[in-house]
């Protein structure tokens, strides 16, 4: 069997298997309890760090800390809301 023949044989077999591969394409973007907690913590950490840095810059402790913490919490809530919406669309 020369290479040309081998290649055409291979192409046929690939074409046969293609529909099977198509089915396996599912998005793996699920909403678990672990990821919910991580998102909440991440938003709060970012708010905390930005708040502390801004307070150091302007010497206005604890004004920016409070504002940025609240904004960080809102941001993490927004991320979660988007995730829930996405998982609802998939189902």
């Amino acid at each position: 069997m020369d290479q040309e023949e081998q290649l055409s044989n291979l192409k046929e077999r690939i074409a046969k298997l293609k529909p099977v591969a198509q089915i396996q394409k599912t998005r793996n973007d699920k909403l678990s309890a672990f990821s919910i907690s991580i998102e909440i913590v991440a938003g709060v950490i970012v708010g905390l760090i930005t708040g502390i840095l801004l307070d150091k810059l302007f010497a206005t402790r604890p004004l920016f800390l409070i504002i940025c913490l609240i904004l960080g919490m809102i941001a993490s809530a927004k991320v979660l809301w988007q995730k829930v919406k996405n998982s609802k669309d998939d189902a």
Partner: protein
Amino acid sequence: MTHNPLAQFEIKKLVDLSLFGYDVSLTNSACFMIIAAVVSLSYFSLALKSKLLIPSRLQMSAELIYGLVSDMLDQNVGPKGRKFVPLIFSLFLFILICNLLGMLPYSFTVTSHISITFALAILVFFLVTLVGFIKNGLGFFSLFLPKGTPWWLAPLMIIIELFTYLARPVSLSLRLAANMVAGHVLLKVMASFAVSLAIYLKVLPIPLMVILIGFEIFVAILQAYIFTILSCVYLNDAVNLH
């Protein structure tokens, strides 16, 4: 006989080195990162040494991993994402090998430290920001303003979107590190229970441990996959703006 479940994450110095007053000692963490790099390099050079038309099993496994990553980029970013295959591929492979090396007895789990996962995540973050600005110019800022926002809400929305954007590397790194730490601590605690449980349950705890270790290997692969797929999703934001 007390076992501290967190003792396995301790960083120890193997070789003391100092350069220009900085401590650059070879720690067990650095050692395992080097091992991971060597393992992945030698695996691929061995698997792709003889490029056969009909691949051998080893070559097949290497091509499978490559196919997984390139498919991931095709699905999430599209044809413009082909350029990023080398980066995403090496990122996936490094995290995967590090996670799997951590499952070996007496080894060290590199990805259980936030300092390492955060370094990887901040790399992706800066790359995405840079690519966004290079591809879209100042139009990249429109990422921070969702469509259909009323004008009086725009300043608040921009700040909130900026915070969600900044939270990405934090959540990306925390997810990987927390998963690895949680899994290894659970494994250690269960294993120390298994010794005393053997008095009452005889050999029953041992198959349980096998199942747990199997689950932990699954988590190791899944977390590497999630890290890379989220990097792809973030890249998609920068490459195809809206």
